[in-house]
Structures are given as C-alpha cells and as structure tokens.
C-alpha cells in the first residue's frame, strides 16, 4: 500500500504513515461492524438453541439490534461511583478495548495483507493478550466495591493459569512451522498432511493441541463455560458491576473483539488461515480473505454453541483443568513433538 501512495507523488515517510493509518482504519472499522453483527449472531444462536426467537424487532430479522443497543448506551449517563478511583475507573475499559484491537495488527488476512509483518508476531500476540487482564483488574480495584474486586482476583488467576498452557501449545506450532511470523506459520501449513490438506489440525500429533487451544482460548477470553469473572449468580456482573453507558459498552465490544481474535488465531495457527482447506488450484479462486472469514465464523459458532450448552465451571475445577490437566499435557506434547521432529530430521 505504501507503494501506491508513493505513486501519487508522496515521499516514503509520508506514504508509509498514510498507508499505516489506512491499514489501521481498514482493520478497525470492519472489526467494529463485525463485532456488532457477531453480538447479534451470538444472541440468535443462543436463542435458537433455547428454542426462543432472539432479537427480531429492530430492522429486518432484528439485524439492527446491536446498533440500537449501541445508540442506547451512547445516550446514557456515565455514572462514576463516589468512592471509586475516578481516573483508573475510566481508564480501565479503554485499556480493555484498546488491547483487544491492538492484537489484530499481526493477523494475516491474505497473502501480503497484514498490517505489521513482524518476525515475532506470535510473541506479540502473547504479549498483548497478557495485557488484557489489566483492564479487568484495574476495574475491579478502582470500582471500590466487593463484587468487582472478587471478579478481578478471579480474572488475574484465571488468565495467568491458561496463558502458561497456551504458551506451550504455541511452542509446538512454532517448532513445526519453524517461525514466529504468523504469515510464515500459515504458509507452513500449505499441503501439510498428505500433500493436499492445508492445516496443522489434520496432523494427528497437533490435533489434540488444537482442542486444548480451543478450550484454553475460551478460558483466556473468559467466555462461557469459564466466565467466572462475571458469574451473575455469584458476583452480580463481576468487574462490570459499577459500569454504565459507554464504559460498559467498551467492555462489551472489547470482549467480543477478543473472542473474534481467538477464533482468528485458531484459524491462523491450526486451520490454515487464509488458505483453502484443500490444496486444490480451483479453491484458490476464492479470495483468501473469504476463507479466513468463513473459518472465523465457524469457530465463533463453536464458541456460541458451547456457551449455550455447557454449564459454568466451578472455580476449583477451572484451576484444576488449567494446572493439572492442560499444563502437564501440553508440556508432554512439547517433548513428544520436538522428539518426533528431531527423529525425522525436520531441523536438519
């Protein structure tokens, strides 16, 4: 894109700046629209599984429901509790929202369509997702209220527990792909199994890791059945209890942007990203962006499905799953996969 701007007679610096800003807008605006639609889809799927109709009043099939909700919260008053730490109270949702958008910078949408093609793309994702916990923890503390504080404690423990096993799972993917660059990881999956299936997931050694990654992703984004941070039967609304208006909406948007990011990561790391599922020339006629979008929507459907069917975990069960099941298992797979790759001369 920089070159296009340079063709218009701009200097490299100005062209690069313009291209970056255009790239950010090209990602952020469709993402916001996507989040609005995905909230609608989530409610529809959930309703269908509970034999309800779901939102069906605003616009055709209720499609404009999210926008109506957005307008509603936009017009509400932002209430700051008098005992709250005002500055931190208002910064916390902004942190959550910003962090949810930042990670999208390194996701490859098509070959060459990536905002920041950096060597350490996967580490960047890990770094940014580890920042996500601050939005919740700061909100819990700054609200100066019991329930948000409990929720913040839970969030901190939960996110740290699952990040460890996610790290080990990613190491296995990196070992196989031989790079931390997300675009490189996608390309490494081309014809990975039998020479024509694109995607690490079809590999019997990596399939269990994908299942663990999917579950850990649900825990990391605090999605049901691991939504203990906002367990309404115990903690009112968790860290969001004291929030209203736009601050609340920012949490809502950030949360769904994070869920979409997890879906995109599942697609990019295990399901071949923007590559079609099979390495057949005719499938490449469909643009890579469409394949990625289809995969993201598929994973989002799984997330919604799980939310509608699985009851919430108890807190000790959540901790047990993270530390006593996923951590040893993913560590074992690091040994297994590096051993296998050494034995087959993958690193030679």
């Amino acid at each position, binding site marked *: 894109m920089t070159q296009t701007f340079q063709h218009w007679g701009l200097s490299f*610096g100005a062209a690069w700046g313009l291209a970056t800003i255009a790239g950010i807008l090209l990602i952020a605006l469709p993402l916001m629209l996507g989040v609005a639609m995905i909230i609608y889809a989530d409610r529809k799927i959930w309703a269908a599984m509970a034999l309800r109709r779901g939102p069906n009043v605003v616009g055709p099939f209720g499609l404009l429901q999210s926008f109506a909700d957005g307008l509603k919260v936009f017009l509400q008053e932002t209430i700051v509790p008098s005992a709250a730490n005002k500055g*931190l109270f208002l910064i916390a949702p902004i942190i959550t929202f910003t962090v949810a958008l930042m990670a999208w910078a390194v996701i490859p949408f098509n070959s060459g369509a990536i905002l920041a093609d*950096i*060597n*350490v793309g996967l*580490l*960047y994702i*890990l*770094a*940014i997702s*580890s*920042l996500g*916990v*601050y939005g919740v*923890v*700061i909100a819990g*503390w700054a609200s100066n209220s019991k329930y948000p*504080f409990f929720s*913040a*404690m839970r969030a*901190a423990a939960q996110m*740290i527990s699952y*990040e460890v096993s996610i790290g080990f799972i990613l190491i296995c993917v990196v070992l196989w792909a031989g790079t*931390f660059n997300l675009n490189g990881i996608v390309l490494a999956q081309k014809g990975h199994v039998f020479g024509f299936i694109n995607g690490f997931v079809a590999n019997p050694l990596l399939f269990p890791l994908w299942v663990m990654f999917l579950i850990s992703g649900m825990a990391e984004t605090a999605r049901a059945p691991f939504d203990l941070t906002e367990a309404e039967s115990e903690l009112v609304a968790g860290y969001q209890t004291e929030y209203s208006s736009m601050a609340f909406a920012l949490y809502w948007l950030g949360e769904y942007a994070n869920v979409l990011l997890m879906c995109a990561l599942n697609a990019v790391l295990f399901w071949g990203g923007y590559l079609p599922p099979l390495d057949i020339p005719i499938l490449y006629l469909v643009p890579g962006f469409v394949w990625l979008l289809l995969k993201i929507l598929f994973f989002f459907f799984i997330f919604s499905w799980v939310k509608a069917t699985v009851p919430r975990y108890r807190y*000790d069960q959540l901790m*047990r799953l993270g530390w006593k099941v996923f951590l040893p298992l993913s560590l074992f797979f690091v040994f297994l996969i590096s051993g296998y790759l050494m034995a087959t001369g993958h690193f030679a």
Partner: protein
Amino acid sequence: MIQTLAFYLFATLVVASGAITILARNPVHSVLWLIVAFFNGAGLMVLVGAEFIAMLLVIVYVGAVAVLFLFVVMMLDIDFAELRSGFVKNFPLGFALALVLLTELILGVGAYRAGAMKLGTPDGTAATGLGTSNIEAIGALLYSRYLFLFEASGIILLVAMIGAIVLTHRERKDSRGQNISQQVRRRPQDATRNMSPGVGQGVEL
C-alpha cells in the same frame, strides 16, 4: 528522524513513570506506573532492534510479574499515616541503597565511555548477531556457547521454585480433598433409584 522522536518519547516516559513510581502515594498507582515504565522500556528495546527481548519484557514483566505485584498490593490494607511514619527510621538504609545505585550508574557510564567492551555501536543500533533474526541469534548463542550457564540457571530456578513450594506447603489434616476420577466414574444408577411408592407408604433408602 522518527526514530529520534520515538526514542525521546519512550526515554522521557520511562524516566518520568519511574519517578512517579517512587513518588506516588498510593502503592497501586506505583505498580501501574511501574508497568508504564516496563512498557516504554520494551519500546526502547524495539528501537535498538531487539524485538525478541522487547516482547519477552512485556510477556514476563508486564504480563506476569507486575500482575502478581498488583495482586499483592491490592490486597494490602493501606494506612497512609503508618506508611509515612517509618520515613526517619528507614532513611539511612534508603540513602545507602541510593548511594550504591548511584555509584553503580557512574561506574557503568565510565566503563562504557572507556570503550573496553563492545556493547553496541554509538548510534544505538545493536551489533548484528549470528542468525538472521533476533530469535535465531539468541537461540544459537544460548544453546551453544552459553549452554552450561543457561542450563545451570534453569536448574537454579527449578530448585528455588521447588524450595519455595516445600517451605510454604502445609498439609491440613482436616480438609477433605476430592477424588476426581471417583467423581467422574460415578454413574446415575449408583446414586439414584427409581421408586413408585404407594399412597401413604414411605420409602426405605
């Protein structure tokens, strides 16, 4: 041009947030400013071309260590009057510590000026490593030349971790743990029975 601008931005923010970390009255604010300092430090690392170190700084310090700091500090019941009362008592110790740090800083700058060790080129770009990328360069060094030191530090950390667990672990006799496999193996027919008691008759369980 943009590098210089970014450097001064990050450097100013590191120094400023470091200062506020010390000056802030509220310990929670201190930790949060410390996180800002870590983050800008990572920005400086990116500027010198050490993107791997930058990411690790964010993952390890901001993502894990500072969360634990925040965790502990938040749970403290802060009494500001008591915090300030220890000032005179702790002043000599703090002053000595500051003096040591200042000496180290002067020594470090002096050693760098003397130019005995090659830390990097004066314009701020780091010396190029063995591999093509940062990660490969560090990996190649860690697993060849510094293999023994690397493994030794790993073992020291492992021993420290196990030691901390052993020292703080206390077994409680009165708590009843769960047997997960027993819970999972339990089937409905083990726990429930279908009965059809007649009117006025109870059931024997």
